[in-house]
């Protein structure tokens, strides 16, 4: 299936979970928030949330800012 992760089209195995995606995209899971199609997926649900074809996923963290 194909999803969009942080604006980039990404090919993933079917039934990939948010938890698995985060471990691919981020160096460590601390300090991270995930939104799928503009809905926040709480950390407690990462393991049980499977991504679906065409999902728009944002994996966010702190960056320098005023």
């Amino acid at each position, binding site marked *: 299936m194909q999803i969009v992760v942080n*604006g980039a089209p990404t090919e993933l195995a079917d039934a990939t979970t948010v938890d698995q995606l985060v471990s691919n995209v981020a160096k460590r899971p601390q300090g991270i928030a995930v939104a799928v199609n503009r809905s*926040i997926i709480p950390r407690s649900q990462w393991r049980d949330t499977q991504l679906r074809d065409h999902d728009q996923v944002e994996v966010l963290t702190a960056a320098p800012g*005023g």
Partner: protein
Amino acid sequence: MTDHTNADPFTIAGQGFDSRLILGTGGVASMDALRAALKTSGTQLATVALRRVSPATQGSLLDIIRESGAQVLPNTAGCFTSAEAILTARLAREALGTSWVKLEVIGDERTLLPDPVELLDAAETLIDDGFTVLPYTNDDPILAARLEGLGCAAVMPLGAPIGTGLGIRNPHNIELIVDRAEVPVILDAGIGTASDAALAMELGCSAVLLATAVTRATDPAAMAEAMRWGVIAGRLARRAGRIPKRYHAQASSGQADLWIED
């Protein structure tokens, strides 16, 4: 001599801070420069934005802020609508484990001035959702009162547009905001140098939030230290009670027993 500098905390939402300088991290040239500036500023609260994760740099910013002993204050920079700001605040709470937010809803790219309609809407929703909301606002006493009325934990009027370093363009409005506010007034944006920070405190602000003035200074660590002392000097002057301004001179040397005869 009494040390006045370390015994003057202020509180936001019941939490005390000894330092009245809040440091924004935007514009830092390097993590080493940030580490040095955090240290010399003495700040206990540092703002961050929420952005897409980059594995190369992930974690270092938060590590550096926490090593400095400062608390992380996420902002909603980059949001132009209430809905974007609300989602960003909730994502920041999820990522960083804090319900404090510097609420920023911008009206346009050119001025980066707050959009008051969107700001009020976002503030109301986030307060209902349990957030401690610190809104970046225009230097408008009526808007500041409305934000306080909604339950914001502080109001943060701008001195001048973000990143301009133009100082405090309307000191009278800042005084009007301070006069009626019962929550801390934090001067946010527009500070260029230490005298601007001192003026904010002389006008009665509880604290100063600045980023660019330090992070884009030639020597950020030295400017951070200058800001630290600027804030302390301005606060001391405010508490000390300045003399009234006079139109004509008033001799400071006494006239009694003057040996020169008329």
